[in-house]
Each structure stands twice: as C-alpha cells, then as structure tokens.
C-alpha cells in the first residue's frame, strides 16, 4: 500500500480496499514509530486528521469524489490551517494556532484530502539543511547523519520515508527542489503566481511559491491540479484558464530539445553528481531528445542577488512578529523598545536574525541604490538569460544541487558555503520560472542525486511529461531508504 501512487491509493479508497481512516491510521502509526528518529513533523494531531478521514469516508461512500479524496497529505508548517498550530519552524510562532486556512489548505480540504500533520522546516523557510528549525533538525531517511535539505526538509523526509502519501512545500530559492533532490523524491516549484500565497507565511514575497512534493511526476501533476488556481486574495496570483497538468504525461519525447547550461556543469559540481546527471541525459537521448549547449551568463550572480533581495523582503515581512498581538513575547521587559528587542532577540533564531540584519542594511538610506536597486537590475538580466535560452531549447536540465546531502552540522559555521548549496536553483526563483527535481541515481556515498528540469513560464505540463517519461524507463523514484521499513 505504501508504495502505491496517488492514483492507486485513490482507486483503493474508492473500491473500499481500504478506508481513509485506515489509511490515515497507517500513516499515523508510522509517524508514531519513526518521527522520533526523523523529526519530519512538528505537529501531528490524530483527532483532527481522523475527523477529516471520517468525512472523506462518508464522501467516498456516497458521491463522485476527487482523485485525492481521503488521501493523507503532509502540510509544510508554513501554511496556516485553521485550528492547527502553525509555527513556521520558529519559536516566535511556537504558540500560534492559525484562525484561518491558507488557499492551499482550502484547496486540499475542498477535494476531501486529509491533513496528516505539519512538517518541519527551516525557521521561516530560511535555510538549506533544515537545521535552523526551532523544533530540531530533520534527519535524511537515506543516511541519518545527512541533512534532508531545506527549507522543506520535513516534507521531503516525510515523503521519502513514507510518512505521508505526498506533501506540500514552498520554494523561495530552492526549498522544494533541493530537499527533494537530497531525499530522493520528486518536487515541483510552479511558475510564480500559479499557486496563491494567501495564508502561506511570507519569507520573500516576490520569490515564494508553493508546490507539491511526492514520489513521482504523475503524483505531482495530480497535486498541482489541486493547488493551482487564481485567488483574488493574492494580488500576484495569476488569472488563467484552469489546466490539467497531467494532460501531457504520456506524450513521447521525440524532438524534445534539452538545454544544458555550461554554468551548471562547471567547477563546484561534484564528480558523482555530474556522472549521475550525464547518465540521465543519456537516458533522455534514448527517449528521442536532443541536447543543445546554452549559456546563462548572469546566473553566476544569482546568489549575491538573492542574498540582497530575499533578506530585504524578509526584513520587512518579519516585522509583524513584534510580540504585540500574537506569537512570542519576552517574559520580562522594561518598556516598549525593550519588549520589541527582547521578544525578537529571543523569538528568532540566528539565521533569521542574520537575514533581518542583511535585509535592513541593504534597504537603508545610502545603501538602497547600491544593493537593492542594483540587485533588481541584475535580477532582470538573469531572467533575460532564460528568455534567450528558451529560444534554443524546450527545457533546461542540470543538477539540482552541486553535491549529495552533506552532513548535519557540516556547513553551520559557514553561511556562505550553506548558501552555495542552492547555486543551481536560485536563478529559477529570480526569473519566476517553474523548476522541478526528480531522482536521478545515487552518489558515491549512496545518497540520492536530483536532476533539475527548468521549464519556460507556465510549461509545468510539459515538464511533468518530461519527468514522467523518464520515470517510465528508470526506477530511481521508486527506491526506498534501506533503514525505512515499508
């Protein structure tokens, strides 16, 4: 059962081979048994999940249902879900019970999916290893000394270890794709604006985008069908015709032009990852694709640009956590300024504070032009590189990360080294393009390698087709970590 695809699970539910309550309990038991090791979930609430499962069973008994009705989905703890503690991985919100549903949560509720719990994440989604979470690090199911990646590390680990049928994530600079790669699962960051950000706790508003994390491209397509859609409560949500992201899954890849950016295969890429990626490209050639070399000359600037813009937006987005209305307030203070300072000093972790400081600095009078405005200009150049590239190819491929999962604690003392683990993913967010990562083999240490597929704007259906065809001829996405019993 645990190795089933979402479509198979849905069929099993509809044919009454299993009930939603039984399926939910199955996962809840696994969480009870394994979460103490993996720490993938911050909050599990059996009763609330089972209420939804019972409602789904009632629905399944009567009427026509959605493909995802009754299926337990793990939600990244960045999405507000009514009645659920929603922490964003922070002490600041460790006591915050959301009084409303995020758009993404509403969409899953609408089709009768079960919220299985809230997954661990880097604090306010700021991190690449899930080590900045106030609720402790998440272990990579493929190697317990390895990081799961971040910031959606809890979701990636939960999917990888079969502690849920599928999960949601958010991706500001690689936070879906990088942990998907490091945990050997599939993850998709849609075009900016495809999934509403309403109720998704903001890190860097112009970059944040929610997306699905699952075992296969086919599962991702089903999940994206539920998550996507215009929402008038998010002014950056795009008003487009509804589309079926699964419509092209079975198209052959004959004539597909794959662009390989030379910048993604340069110094810094580890040999084992390079080898796995080259092997997958070879597989694509067998499927009828051709390969073109492309250039993304400005992508080398994406990390500095990102670490100006994302902290700038974050420094402002996180100002609302002031201890006044909700969230953490320092127990003792002498006056208003002291309350702000102590509450924020105690409520935020080191990485969050570092980024607030950077963001505050780059927006300051006298520095704004040199940092923020300059970064915005380069951001446009980076986006323009992709426009040029997509004149020559249909999709762009490369490694999702320069290495397989690094060890817990390995990069904690050197933030720049940590930031470099997102070197191939960040440009995609800066351009607002869709990107995904799918399992593409293993490195020398036995840890998973992710293949990144970047599409043109709104080309999610084609990307899913490209990924699905690969998954028809490979079995990397079906592999299960050896320590995890299924």
């Amino acid at each position: 059962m645990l190795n089933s695809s979402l479509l198979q699970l849905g069929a099993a539910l509809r044919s009454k081979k299993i009930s939603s309550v039984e399926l939910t309990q199955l996962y809840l038991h696994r969480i009870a048994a394994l979460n103490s090791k993996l720490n993938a979930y911050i909050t599990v609430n059996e009763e609330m999940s089972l209420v939804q499962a019972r409602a789904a069973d009632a629905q399944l008994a009567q009427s026509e249902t959605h493909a995802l009705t009754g299926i337990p989905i793990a939600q990244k703890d960045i999405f507000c879900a009514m009645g659920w503690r929603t922490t964003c991985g922070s002490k600041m919100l460790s006591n915050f019970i959301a009084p409303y549903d995020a758009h993404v949560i509403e969409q899953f509720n609408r089709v009768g999916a079960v919220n299985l719990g809230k997954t661990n994440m880097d604090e306010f989604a700021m991190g690449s290893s899930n080590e900045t979470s106030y609720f402790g690090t998440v272990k990579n199911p493929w190697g317990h000394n390895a990081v799961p990646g971040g910031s959606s590390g809890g979701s990636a680990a939960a999917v990888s270890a079969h502690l849920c049928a599928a999960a949601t994530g958010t991706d500001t600079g690689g936070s879906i794709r990088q942990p998907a790669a490091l945990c050997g699962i599939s993850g998709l960051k849609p075009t900016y604006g495809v999934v509403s950000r309403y109720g998704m706790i903001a890190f860097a508003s112009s970059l944040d985008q929610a997306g699905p994390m699952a075992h296969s491209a086919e599962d991702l397509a089903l999940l994206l069908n539920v998550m996507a859609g215009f929402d008038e409560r998010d002014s950056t949500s795009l008003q487009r015709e509804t589309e079926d992201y699964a419509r092209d899954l079975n198209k052959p890849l004959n004539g597909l032009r794959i662009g390989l950016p030379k910048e993604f295969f340069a110094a810094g890429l580890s040999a084992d990852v390079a080898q796995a990626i080259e092997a997958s490209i070879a597989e694509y050639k067998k499927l009828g694709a051709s390969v073109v070399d492309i250039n993304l000359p400005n992508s080398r600037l994406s990390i500095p640009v990102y670490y100006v813009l994302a902290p700038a937006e974050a420094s402002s987005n996180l100002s609302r956590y002031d201890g006044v209305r909700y969230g953490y307030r320092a127990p003792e203070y002498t006056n208003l300024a002291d309350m702000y300072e102590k509450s924020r000093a105690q409520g935020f972790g080191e990485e969050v504070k570092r980024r607030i400081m950077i963001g505050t600095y780059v927006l300051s009078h006298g520095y704004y032009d040199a940092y923020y405005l300059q970064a915005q200009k380069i951001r446009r150049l980076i986006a323009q590189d992709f426009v040029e590239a997509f004149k020559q190819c249909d999709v762009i491929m490369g490694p999702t990360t320069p290495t397989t999962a690094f060890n817990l604690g390995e990069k904690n003392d050197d933030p720049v080294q940590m930031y470099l683990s997102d070197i191939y993913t960040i440009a995609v967010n800066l351009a607002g393009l869709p990107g995904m990562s799918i399992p593409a083999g293993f490195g020398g240490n036995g840890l998973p390698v992710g293949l990144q597929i970047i599409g043109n704007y709104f080309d999610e259906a084609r990307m899913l087709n490209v990924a699905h065809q690969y998954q028809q001829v490979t079995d990397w996405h079906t592999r299960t970590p050896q320590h995890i019993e299924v």
Partner: protein
Amino acid sequence: MQWEIVIGLEVHAQLSTSSKIFSGASTAFGAEPNTQACAVDLALPGVLPVLNRGAVERAIRFGLAVGAHIAQRSVFSRKNYFYPDLPKGYQISQFDLPIIGQGSLTIQVPTTTTGQTYKKVVRLTRAHLEEDAGKSLHEDFHGMTGIDLNRAGTPLLEIVSEPDMRSAAEAVSYAKMLHTLVRWIGICDGNMQEGSFRCDANVSVRRPGAELGTRREIKNLNSFRFLQQAIEYEAQWQIDTLENGGTIHQATVLFDSDKGETRAMRSKEDANDYRYFPDPDLLPLAIDNEWIEQVRGTLPELPLSKQARYIADLGLSVYDADTLTSSREMADFFEATLNEAPKEAKLCANWLMGDVSASLNREDRDITQCPISPQQLGGMLKRIADGTISNFAAKEVFKILWSNGGNPDTIIETKGLKQMSDVGAMEAMVDEIITANPVQVAEYRCGKEKVFGFFVGLAMKASKGKANPAQMNEILKRKLAG
C-alpha cells in the same frame, strides 16, 4: 527688516470607501475597539493586501478635480517602522511613483484690513494613496497602552502642496478650499473631529528673495483654528529665534492647543530611516485612459466653474457666488431652488444666505438638515416674484414652512397672506391712518420726511402685511401730500 513666512501643507484626507484600502473590513467610525479589524488588518501570518478599487477611483477623482497628471503606472511601497498600532511593522504607502502628480488649486484669501479677498493659485506637488495606522490609547489602561486597530488600513489620500503659501491666512484658505473640494467630489466626509481631514504644516521663514529657510513640520492639526494658531505661533517663534541670533534646526513639532504653542517632538537626527521599497505583495497600479475618462464622466461641476457661471449667467456678485459654492450641498440647494423660481437668482441667493442660513445657524444645522426643501422655498419665492405675497408676508410663510412644513400656496391661501391689490380698500386704510395721526401728518407736511416710514409701518400693519408695498407707498405719498 521684513520676514517672509513660507508654508507648505500635507493633508491626509480619509477616503469615503465603505471598506479598507487593502482588506474587506468596514471603515465605519466609532465601533467597539478591534471589531473592525480582520485578519489582514491584524497582520496575521500569511495574509496579503488586495487594493480597493474604490480608493483608486477616489484618487483619480481628486486628480481630475485639481487638473493633475494621473500616473498610468504608480507603485505601492513599504514604509518600515515599529509601533504597536502599526500591525505589519510597515505602512503601505506610495513613495517615488505616486498616483497623482502636479496639479493646482485656486484659493480666495480674505484680507484682514479691507474685508476683501484676493485670488491665489497654490501648486500641488503630488497626492498618493496610503493606509492609516490604528490608534494607541494611553488613558484608562493603568500604565499600559490599549491598541485599537479599527482604523488600521483605512484609506488615506495624502495631498502635498508646494511651499506656496505666505501667511497663516493663505494656509487656512488653502486647507478650507481643499476641504470643500474633497467633500464636493465625494471622496471624503471631511469630518475633522473624527480625523477624516488632518493637516501637517511645513513652516519656514526667510528674508524676501532669499533662499528657503529651514523648515519645521507641525503635525496633526485637526481644525482650521489650530492650523492658524499653530502657524502664527511657529512663524513668530522662528523669527524671534533668528533675530536673537539663533538658528532653526529641521524638526517635527506638535501643537499644544491648550497652551497655544508648538513643541519639538523629534529632530532630523533621530528621524527614522523608513527603508522604503516597492511592496512585493502588490503589483504596480496601472490606470488606463478608459478608466480616467469613465471617472471624469461622473465628476460633478466643480466650485470654480460654478462660481464663474453664477457670476456670468446669473448676475450674482463674487461674494454671493463664493458663498453659494462653499459646499456642494449648498450649491445643489441653490440650484434646486432656482429651478422652482427661474430668473430669480438674486432673490434665491438672498434668502438662502439670509433667512435660511440664519435659521440653520440658530439651530446648529447644516444645509442638508434644512427642514424646508428647495421645492418649498422656491415655491414661496415664486410667489414673491409674481407679486402674490409681499416680502413681509413671505417671512410669515417661511416661519410656517420651517416649523410645520406644507405647501407654500396652501399656506398663503389658508393664512390669507395674499397681497392686497384692491386700491379702494388701501385708500380707505390710508385715509383712516391720516385721520388718526394728525400730529405726524403735520410733521411730514412740514418736511420731516423720516416720518414716512412710520406711516408705511402702520399701513402694512393695518393690511396685516398683505398690501403690495409699492402700491401702498404710492397711495401714502399721494394722500400725505394732501
């Protein structure tokens, strides 16, 4: 040596939308604290702003009314600072790309000496949309501060003038004209007590012809009287300081209305660095010509245009035209009255500015609360014009209309107020008066013409005010002459 006072005003006009600028919560004033603050206004994690189209439309109306450039593309920015009544830790405002560009406002300034007015054009620098903050309540909480977020997110239009005003009187005229205009075009209720219209004044002084002096900004003046007092005090303080060899430092000051003084709140040195940057949650605001033209089509005739028309077409004086256009409601009342009694513009104006205004003032009402409708008033004035009733009898009709309502013609009929035009009856009355007052008749005939008024009074009284005054005068003159 002379000093010149230089003043620029920043006015915050609260826009009259029923919901907030970035959320669906109500903007109604006076509700229980925090009952009109939704998730967006409370800045809960994950919420997002959505721009209220009604606020944009009101800004466009204003731009059109002051002949300003309306930006096809403007940008909302975040102004970052911490304060408990600012839930997000930033205010969404407009910074380098405001919705409304340069415009102008023509004002009438009264002079203290002659009682006359002069015209002046004040240039507007810009106007931009922003959200209001909540309120901090420092009383009643025993050493703590209460926060009411009902006002948080209320739409404001901040209207910035050039430093074109040269006296407190000019500044007050400008503020009053703006106050009239925003109510006129229906974008702001203008209620200053409730804070719907608040002024900040930038004041500096200089020797005529010299460079602009250093300014100090007086914050949050919520009455025209305080605006006048604060500017006068501040300007004099700056002049005294400079004449005593001191220098002015840029600062924000508050006006203490009890003491009548301005007091420094913070200096430039400890001014906040607001770290403005474009709000990534909101797309740039795009306004196309079609929208602008659509709004233009709904704009009422503006005060200046009405004034010119009243003077040129209706033959009213500048003073009358000015008074009748002091508010849109007044002008509407005037025009509706005139509609009933066409060609009687001066008569309508006199009654509106005379008996109607006096009665309203006595009862502390404004024109919208007038118990007499323009149709009733016009109906009565029509009867004065066609000679049915005298002005004297009209006062009686007016009193009845004011307190009991009704149809003026019915009142004239039932109260028997129709003007008397029976010459024989009037002559008989005059004969009786002459017989009864021989002493006064003698005086008159000896050349004491003042006594004539005495006879007029008696005659009108005898006719119960119904006599046609012109006819009665003629008869009196003839009979008294002997």
